[in-house]
């Protein structure tokens, strides 16, 4: 069976509805978790002490 390159690499492409796991390293995943936690803390801080939420962001 001939193998045809449709294209080589598309970062945003999903295969069977799942993102290519190989694009994210374990460190990438940990950093995303860190950033999520900081954004949640920042949002709570702003709500409590400043009475505002970060504009345009959904952290819940």
């Amino acid at each position: 069976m001939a193998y045809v390159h449709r294209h080589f690499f598309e970062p945003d492409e999903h295969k069977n509805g799942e993102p290519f796991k190989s694009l994210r390293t374990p460190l990438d995943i940990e950093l995303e978790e860190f950033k999520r936690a900081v954004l949640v803390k920042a949002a709570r801080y702003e709500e409590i002490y400043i009475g505002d939420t970060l504009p345009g962001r959904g952290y819940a």
Partner: protein
Amino acid sequence: MAFVHTTLGWQPKAGGVLKAVGAGGRYGALAVRFSNALNPERDLQLEFFTEHSDFAGTDNGRVPTMFSHGLAIGEQPIFKRFADAVFGDAELTRLDNGIFGTIRLDPANSMESALADLIEQGALRFSSGSTAQFVRRGTDGQILRWPIVELSVTPTPAEWRLPKIRRL
């Protein structure tokens, strides 16, 4: 990274970069805010700086940058990794209303890039750190002496009136 098909097969596009990099650059904001001793605006620890607070010369100097004063904000290893990290020096400049901090974050460094990303999302402010043997406080909460030994970026500074760090 973009690839193009040539007579040699699939090749990186000419002029393309080999490795993607994240956010980074030069960022700054007010890091210490002076209050009026006669009508003080206290921070969340009920303390305040004034223009007479003694910074022992560190208000125009360079100090290491940390994340949240080296305190881990979670249990997982990545939080400890940020708590243990010491980043490049911050530059401090005294102004009439406080001390301005400037930091540089390397987009090729994954941890610094993560901080830069958080700054660009408006999540971080500065907080200065000193050590107990240096610090002197008045009975009214006025900070009399505060040599700055590190400048932290944090989502939860004691002084909530400080502006968010922004790209310079």
